[in-house]
């Protein structure tokens, strides 16, 4: 089960600067820690986070092993048109999650 929490305004004025927040459940295992059996736990992190507005990429972020579990990303965007904001996380072990929210720009 993948868990995502997104906070984005449902409506915005054209040209308004809005804050978008995205939180995801993920262990962000660094690949440097030994497990209880003494062996190194293989790295399992989110490598990339992207956000796109109606298919146009507005943010791309590379994540590193130093980022804590359950990464929280907050950023700003200018509201240009109504439509869909899509958040996408991809990473190790085939991790790929996509979540969208609708926004009304008047």
């Amino acid at each position, binding site marked *: 089960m993948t*868990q995502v*929490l*997104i906070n984005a305004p449902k409506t915005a004025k054209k040209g308004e600067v809005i804050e978008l927040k995205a*939180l*995801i459940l993920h262990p*962000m295992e660094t690949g440097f820690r030994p497990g209880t059996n003494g062996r190194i736990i293989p790295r399992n992190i989110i490598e990339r986070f992207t956000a796109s507005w109606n298919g146009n990429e507005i943010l791309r972020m590379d994540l590193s092993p130093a980022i804590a*579990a359950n990464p929280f990303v907050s950023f700003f965007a200018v509201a240009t048109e109504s439509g869909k904001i899509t958040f996408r996380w991809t990473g190790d072990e085939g991790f790929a999650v996509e979540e969208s929210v609708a926004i009304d720009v008047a």
Partner: protein
Amino acid sequence: MLPVVFAASFALAQVGADRAGADKRRSGYQDMGAALQKMQDDDSANPGMLFVQLGQQLWSKPAGAANKACADCHSIADMKGVAARYPAMLKDGDKPIDLEGRISLCRTANQQAEPFAPESRDLLPLMAFVANQSRGMPIAPPQDARLTPFREQGAAIWVRRQGQLNLSCAICHDDNAGKKLAGVTIPEAHPTGYPIYRLEWQALGSLKRRLRNCLVGVRAEAYAHEALEYVALEVFLMDRAKGMIFESPGVRP
């Protein structure tokens, strides 16, 4: 004799005045920085809410031989206040059980399913979901005389020195609360936000995990996971925090 009586009644009056006036007890929330407080208050930034959401899904997922979900017997509204009340005695039980114990009991007895492992990815979200229903309510332990011996047991553990550091819970959390242990403010240890998302753990954890954490910290041997000592301590701590506002899922450094 007279001065003693006078002193005693004076002390009582003081306690009464303190109760009536501002409550001097502090939740760990009040000792955190503004950034962490905001993190806890904002449901889209509080990582504990991820687990609440997960718990909500598990709530209506059937399990076990009985193929029943929590939602088949309980309404979510019934869960309001439950976490602010536990640990409690079962109707015909002889020892108190905490929220974790209650959920485990429901799982094995009513759902006839495998018990959850302690601190597991199934148990914690369910606890978080149930606890979240009591957010904003005052902590209200049940008025049950059968709890008294366990509360006393908990109180005795609270003041008992243990571990290689030879410290009791009370030495830090009563006598030195508010002062610093290295860079960290020592909290008063009121269980207002459990299960909490602790940044140090990078995970959600129960009060039991926190208690084990402290026991290891004073270099004592932690009680076994199923030990009654934890529940007794919880009974004592919930009584000590009576009337404080329940804030689960809390965020703590």
